[in-house]
């Protein structure tokens, strides 16, 4: 209470940046901070409550996540911060985290006795602003108010930034940064970026900068309206002003919509990353929850995928992870979304994706699955295309869509299939046209670039930020989100494709490759990571794109043989890593979102990078080799098996429900020879 009021007054009183710790809202701050504690363990709950009271905070405790959510919804603006346990029987802590972030945009602190790196990382990727290890000490709780302050500060900046959203070229980055306000570097990165962005635009800022808008709680209905409006406009054309008009909700400001849009785009991006995975898996489309974008799952999925892609994860593990990740959020059906995305990837640079040859068979079976999920006819076509291009395994290859046809088709399905995917659909739909135009021709060599550009365009739109439809190289990366088609991400094909390795190479996946482009799900995870990264670093993509633009031409020939369609995803992934491995293709793919980020994003990508690089390297070697060896090839890739297992484990630990969701039809882990 004090906090929000204070903030508001603060803002109005001074211009941007006025919010200073010195000018605290009230004398008492941080006393009186309204904290909601969620933990199913009564002992911990009691202890925490006592500690928080000692810190002079106002504490509300509850032992079930559902209760917590309803409490939050009923008392909009009734809480300043939420502290939640990770392992809870009724709902996964990360899921709650995402929901809270999306609906109420409150800072959420996760806590657990589990201090494993993967779990903490999950917290980061899902947007937790901090992670406490149990037993929690009172000293740790004394400073939680910083997260509230930081978030408000970022939000305020978001509002300022919102004007930029409408500018075509702007990349959507800053707002997403707010989600990660906890980490120092991110904060600084974002702030600097934001500042830079701010400088670019002048007009919008003035309105928002002086005014601190009261926090808007995005209820399920409101969010539904929002999504409806966005879909109506088309994700790439959805600008806050128009959305606001369509929604026609009194009291809602453009800034509210703008910041929510940013989050939504981020969410979509995550989904697309995940969907890539799913494509391989086949059918199930993630059923996005309107309220909670299901980002959680996508995130986790992405993480997994990324990892998978890098070849680290055996196809199976990828699948599992993917499932877990995807399952988490809402994707029960399976893969639907991912499929779509993946397909996109495939379409794009099949040749690029050349993942392990072995993938071939995997992909062949898988792609069908992927397509299945996607209602459109494209699916079949896509598949064919994919096969030809021997793109990466899953969605990743979507990028490859460059083939032109493929892309569009891939995109289409995306658009159509997902229910959740409203946005996805939108995006894909939108993109499709774009891609087609840009792609013009097969990805393979030049096509790639165009595809890429096309992709990028899409991506951008997804981003909500600058959409550069054809940026020829750079665009690729930008488009990671929605369709996850970004090939790089594709590497996620869950487990299925060892592909990862194949990506590396040859850049252009030969059309001949009929194998299904399976996007290794593994890639997803990285994608997820990259999403965030990407947002920030749209720039990176550009770089990446360039890489992407693939040099398919170079590799064309070789690709065919070695590259199994399934390989796809990985390709993008690995190539980017290497920076040169597979030629641009790999890079492009990777850069699409993940790849580039990997390089940049040291944190999460570290692993991936390592993985990717390894893979790519391997792929190169192997690519020439043979389709048959894909599995074996892939095995080699798994240098990072431990990574995968860690992931898996993490997934298993945390994801009870997720497992169920993982129902990639196509994706039969068992099939994967790995």
């Amino acid at each position, binding site marked *: 209470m004090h906090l929000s009021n204070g903030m508001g007054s603060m803002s109005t009183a001074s211009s941007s940046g006025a919010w200073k710790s010195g000018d605290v809202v009230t004398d008492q701050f941080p006393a009186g901070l309204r904290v909601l504690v969620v933990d199913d*363990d009564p002992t911990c709950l009691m*202890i925490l409550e*006592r500690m928080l009271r000692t810190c002079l905070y106002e504490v509300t405790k509850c032992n079930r996540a559902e209760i917590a959510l309803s409490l939050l919804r009923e008392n909009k603006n009734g809480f300043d911060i939420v502290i939640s*346990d990770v392992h809870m029987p009724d709902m996964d802590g990360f899921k709650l985290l995402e929901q809270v972030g999306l609906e109420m945009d409150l800072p959420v602190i996760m806590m657990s006795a589990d201090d494993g790196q993967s779990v903490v990382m999950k917290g980061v990727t899902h947007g937790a602003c901090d992670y406490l290890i*149990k037993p929690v000490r009172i000293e740790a709780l004394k400073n939680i108010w910083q997260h509230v302050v930081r978030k408000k500060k970022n939000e305020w900046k978001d509002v300022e930034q919102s004007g930029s959203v409408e500018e075509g070229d702007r990349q959507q980055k800053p707002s997403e940064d707010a989600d990660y306000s906890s980490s120092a570097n991110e904060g600084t990165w974002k702030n600097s970026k934001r500042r830079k962005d701010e400088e670019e635009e002048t007009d919008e800022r003035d309105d928002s900068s002086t005014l601190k808008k009261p926090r808007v709680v995005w209820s399920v209905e409101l969010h539904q309206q929002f999504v409806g409006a966005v879909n109506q406009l088309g994700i790439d054309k959805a600008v806050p002003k128009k959305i606001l008009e369509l929604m026609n909700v009194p009291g809602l400001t453009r800034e509210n919509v703008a910041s929510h849009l940013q989050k939504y785009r981020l969410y979509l991006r995550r989904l697309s990353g995940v969907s890539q995975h799913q494509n391989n898996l086949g059918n199930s489309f993630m059923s996005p929850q309107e309220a909670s974008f299901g980002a959680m799952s996508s995130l986790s999925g992405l993480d997994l995928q990324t990892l998978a892609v890098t070849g680290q994860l055996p196809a199976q593990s990828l699948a599992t992870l993917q499932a877990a990740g995807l399952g988490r959020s809402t994707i029960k059906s399976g893969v639907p979304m991912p499929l779509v995305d993946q397909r996109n990837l495939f379409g794009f640079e099949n040749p690029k994706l050349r993942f392990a040859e072995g993938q071939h068979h995997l992909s062949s079976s898988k792609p069908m699955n992927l397509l299945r999920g996607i209602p459109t006819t494209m699916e079949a076509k896509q598949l064919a295309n994919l096969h030809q291009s021997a793109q990466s395994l899953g969605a990743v290859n979507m990028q490859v869509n460059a083939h032109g046809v493929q892309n569009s088709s891939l995109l289409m399905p995306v658009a159509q299939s997902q229910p959740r995917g409203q946005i996805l659909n939108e995006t894909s739909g939108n993109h499709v046209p774009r891609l087609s135009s840009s792609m013009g021709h097969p990805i393979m060599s030049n096509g790639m670039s165009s595809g890429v550009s096309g992709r990028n365009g899409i991506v951008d739109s997804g981003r909500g930020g600058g959409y550069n439809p054809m940026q020829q190289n750079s665009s690729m990366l930008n488009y990671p989100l929605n369709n996850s088609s970004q090939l790089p991400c594709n590497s996620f094909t869950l487990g299925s494709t060892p592909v990862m390795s194949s990506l590396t190479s040859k850049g252009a996946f030969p059309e001949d490759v009929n194998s299904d482009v399976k996007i290794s799900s593994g890639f997803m995870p990285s994608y997820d990571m990259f999403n965030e990264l990407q947002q920030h670093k749209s720039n990176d993509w550009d770089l990446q794109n360039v890489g992407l633009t693939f040099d398919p031409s170079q590799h064309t020939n070789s690709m065919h043989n070695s590259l199994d369609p399934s390989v796809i995803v990985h390709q993008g992934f690995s190539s980017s890593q290497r920076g040169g491995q597979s030629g641009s293709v790999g890079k492009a793919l990777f850069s699409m979102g993940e790849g580039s980020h990997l390089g940049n994003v040291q944190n999460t990508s570290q692993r991936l990078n390592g993985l990717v690089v390894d893979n790519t390297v391997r792929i190169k070697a192997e690519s020439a080799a043979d389709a048959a060896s894909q599995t074996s090839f892939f095995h080699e890739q798994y240098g990072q098996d431990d990574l995968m297992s860690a992931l898996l484990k993490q997934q298993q630990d945390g994801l009870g429900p997720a497992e169920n969701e993982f129902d990639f039809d196509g994706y039969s882990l068992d099939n994967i020879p790995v």
Partner: protein
Amino acid sequence: MERNQLRRQVRLMRQSLFDQGFLDEQFVQLEELQDDANPNFVEEVATLYYRDSSRSLQILEQALQRNPRDFNKLDNYMQQFKGSSSSIGAKKVKADCQQFREYCNAGNAEGWQGKLGQSRHHVDPSNQESHQQPESSLD
């Protein structure tokens, strides 16, 4: 006199619990949370913990007996238990939990059984309750 003696006893017992590794720093934190406004905080928390932990152990035992063993679930239960044990400062129990989880990861069911028995002993209220009671009665 009598009172002082009791107090001394309590102090000694408490110290021994620390020395033996049953309790750690966290317990001290809990003690610090206790004040005039909440005089029985530690006792309340300890009671809650015992109740909760016996339930947890029961669940664990049941899960262990089930065949085939679901190590994921076991791991989750153990994670919970570890969380509450560490929050109260039950060092040994926490260590046991950690080991449990390792066994779980390794799929070592027998190891579980053994550990479970050990943890029960560590959590045994008699170890700590007696420590609690005198303190509160002295207040």
